[in-house]
C-alpha cells in the first residue's frame, strides 16, 4: 500500500503512472489492458448514441451494458487476484475468482444476447 518514493514536485498523475508501471505485475497489466479496451469500446458506443442515434435503444443498452458489465466483472477479477488484496478475499482463491468471472460473464452475455433483439 505504501506509495513509492517519487518526486513530490511532479504532477500527481505522472507519478501515479510511474508508480503503476513499477509495482504492477504483468498479469494485472494484462487485465488492465482489457479494461482499457472495454472502456474505450463503451465510450465509443456512448458517443455514438448521443451524437448519431439511440434508435434501437435495446441494442445500444445491450452493447453498452455488455462493456460495462464485462468491465466490472474484470475489475472484480483484478481485485480478487491482486496479491495485495489477499487479506480481503480469504475464501476466494485466484482459480475460484477466475471461475466466478467466467460464470458471471456467461450469464451477462446470455442476457446481452437476449436483449440485442
Amino acid at each position: 500500500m505504501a506509495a513509492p518514493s517519487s518526486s513530490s514536485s511532479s504532477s500527481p498523475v505522472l507519478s501515479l503512472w510511474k508508480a503503476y508501471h513499477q509495482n504492477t505485475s504483468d498479469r494485472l497489466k494484462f487485465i488492465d489492458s482489457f479494461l482499457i479496451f472495454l472502456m474505450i469500446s463503451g465510450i465509443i458506443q456512448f458517443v455514438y448514441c448521443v451524437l448519431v442515434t439511440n434508435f434501437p435503444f435495446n441494442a445500444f443498452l445491450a452493447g453498452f451494458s455488455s462493456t460495462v458489465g464485462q468491465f466490472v466483472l474484470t475489475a472484480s477479477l483484478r481485485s480478487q487476484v491482486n496479491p495485495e488484496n489477499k487479506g480481503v478475499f480469504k475464501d476466494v482463491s485466484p482459480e475460484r475468482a477466475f471461475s466466478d468471472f467466467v460464470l458471471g460473464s456467461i450469464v451477462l452475455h446470455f442476457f446481452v444476447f437476449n436483449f440485442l433483439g
Partner: protein
Amino acid sequence: MSTAYPLPTNLSKTTVANTASLLRIVALGLISAAAIASRLFAVINFESIIHEFDPWFNYRATRVLAAKGFYEFWNWFDPTAWYPLGRVVGGTVYPGLMATSGVIYNFLHAFNLPVDIRNICVLLAPGFSALTAWATYMFTKEMKDESAGLLAAAFIGIVPGYISRSVAGSYDNEAIAIFLLMFTFYCWIKALKTGSALFGTLAAVFYFYMVAAWGGYAFITNMIPVHALALMLMGRFSSRLYVAYCSWYAIGTLSSMQVPFVGFQPVRTSEHMGALGVFGLLQIVAFAQLARSHLSSKQFQNLLTVAVIVMGVVGTFGFIALTYMGWIAPWTGRFYSLWDTGYAKKYIPIIASVSEHQPTAWPSFFMDLQFLIFLFPAGVVLCFRELRDEHVFVIIYAVVASYFAGVMVRLMLTLTPVVCVASAVAFSSLMDTYLDPTQPEAEGESRPAEVDASAASNGSTASTASKKEKEKAKKPAAGGALSDIVAATSSSKKSKGVWGLDTRLVVIAHSLLMLGFFVFHCTWVTSSAYSSPSVVLASTNADGSQHIIDDFREAYYWLRQNTAEDAVVMSWWDYGYQIAGMADRPTLVDNNTWNNTHIATVGKAMSSSEEVAYPILRKHDVDYVLVIFGGLLGYSGDDINKFLWMVRIAQGVWPDEIQEPNYFTPQGEYRVDDRASSAMRNSLMYKMSYYRFAELFGGGQAVDRVRQQTMPKTGPTLDYLDEAFTSENWIVRIYQVRKEDDLGRDLKSANAFAQGKKRKRTKPVSKRRAITV
C-alpha cells in the same frame, strides 16, 4: 469448572456435530411441513378454489399459458378486458408467477402426473412458503448462527403477517416474491461476506426472477444500494463490496430490462437511479483506492479533492438536466404516496380507494406479528452490538420496512421477514444465555472443556451452537442479553453465566410459554381471519354448523350460461377479474386499473341518474350491469359502501357534473333511507341496489342490515334497466340494459306509457301526495 446441570462426557465432537446437523435437517423439514399445513385451512374449510380478486386474473393467465404455451401467452392480447380498449396482457404483466406454475405443470405432465392447473395454482403459495422458511434460515444463519436461523424459519413459517398473503388459493405475486426477496438478500449478504462474484451473479439471477414476479422488486433495487452506500459512508469500503455490488448491479439491471413490463425503466426512472448512482460512486471509490495504493498521501489528497468536486458537480447537474429534459421520469404517484400519506387521497383517488393501500392500524401489527413485535427491537439492538456488515443490512432493512409497513397495510408483508430475523436473533441470544451450562466461578476456569460441554448440551437440546459462537463465548462482551448486563455492572474480567437452575428454568419456561402462545395465536388468526376465499362466504348456523354463502359463483355462472358470449358486463373495477375469470365475459374495467378515465366513466355512470347514465352505457355497448349489494345479508364490502370512491374518482375527471357533497345529507351524513339526498336517490347505483328491496319485507319495515337504516316503503323505479338476475342472498344483482325504444320514444316515457295502460301510474302519485300531506 461447574455446570448447572450434568453433561454427558463420553461424546466425541464429531458425534455432537453430526447429531446437530441431523436435528437441523429434521427441524427444517418439520418447519416446512408446518408452514405448508397451516396454509391449508382455506382448502379444508372451504375448497380448492382461487381466492379474492387479483388471483383470478393470474389464474386465468396461467390457464392460457398452460393451454397454449409460452409464446402465445407472451403475445396475448385480451380484447375482453377494458372493453373496448383491450389489454396487451403479455406486456403489462409480471410473468414470473404464471411462468413458475407453467413450468411446474409441464414438469408434472412430463412425468405423466395429470395434475389440474388449478390445484397447482392453489397450492403454489404454500409450497413456496416452505422455501421461504429455508431462505430465511440461510439468511439468519449469516446474521448469527444456525439456532437463530431455525427460529427465524419457524417464525416466518407460521407468522400471520406472511400467511395473510400466502394461504392456499391466494395465487398472487407475493406468493413467490417473498421467497425471492429473502433469497436475493441472502445471496447479497453472502456475496458481500466472501467477496465472491458467484454469489453476486446468483443474487442478480434471483433479482431477475423477482423483477419478473412482483412490482415490489423496487424494494431490493433500493435496499441493496442503500446498504452499500451506508457501508461506504461508515468507511467500510472494501474490494468485497465492490465485487458483490458491481456483479449484482451490472447483471441484475440488464436482466431486469428483459421483462417487457419493466422495459427501459431501470435506466429511465428515478426509482432506479439510486442504484445507478451508487454503482458509479463505487467505481470512483474503487479507482481512488487503487490510485491511493500507488501514490503518496499528499498527492492523493490533491487528486481526490479535484476529482470529487468535478464528479459531484457533473453528476448532480447531469441528473437534473436529464430529469428536466424528460429523459429520466420523475417519481410516480404511487411512490409519492409512500412519503405523503395524504397525497393519494388528494390527487389519485384510485390508489387511495384500494383497501390494502390504507395506513396500517396499530392492532394489526400485533395481530400479524404477535410477540415478535416486541422482540423485534431487541433483535435490532443486538445487531448494533456486533455491527458486522450484514448487521448494518438488517438494521437498515428494519428501519425502512417499519416505516413502509406503517404507511401501507400491504407493505406489512415486507416488514414480516426482517421482524422474524431480528426476533430470532434476540430469542436465540436469550436461549444461548440461559441454556449455556457454565456457571460463573470466582477463579478462572478451564475454557476448552467448558466449550466442549456447552456444545454437547446444546446439541442435545436441539439448539445447536456453532464454532463461531463458541469463539464468541470466550469474549465476555459477546454473550446473551443478561450477561451483557452482568458485564456492564461488573468488571469485564468476570466470566459470564447464570447461577443456578431455578433462574434458568423460570426464564426458559416463560420463553417456551410465549412460543406456545405464538403458535396458538398464529393458528387461530390463520384459521379465522386469513383463510376466507372471499369468493365464497361462510356463516354459522344456529346449531354451530357452517353455512356456505355462494352468491358470487351463482351469479357468475348465471352470466356464463345465460348471456351471449360477447355480452359486455359493467361493474365496479373490483369485480372485473372475477367476471373475466368465472363468467368469461368482457368487462369495462378491472383490477388492473391502468386507465383512470375509463374507471371514472364507470364511476360516472354509476353515480349519475338513469337519463345521464343510459347514453354512457349504450356508447360502451354495455349489456349487463352488475352490482354487489349486502344490505339483506349484512355483507359490508358491497358497492354502496364503495360508492363514495366511485363518486370521488368520477369527480376527478368530471368535476362539473359529479360532486361528492351532493351525495351527503345536508347534515353531512351518508344515508340511504328517506333522508338520503336526491343525487344519492337518483343515482344508478342506489336504484340498482335497492330496486324492489322493500317488497322483500312484505309490507314490513325494510332494513338495510349493513348501514342499519330503515328503507322507505316505496323503493326506486328503473326505466332504462331490467332486473335480470338476483342471487340467493341478494349479494349480486345483475341488470340488463334496455335497447332503444322501437318507436323512438325515450325509455322513460315509453315506460310511463306502458305502466299507464295498466293504470298503475296513479298509484305512486297518490302515495306521494299522502306523504307530503
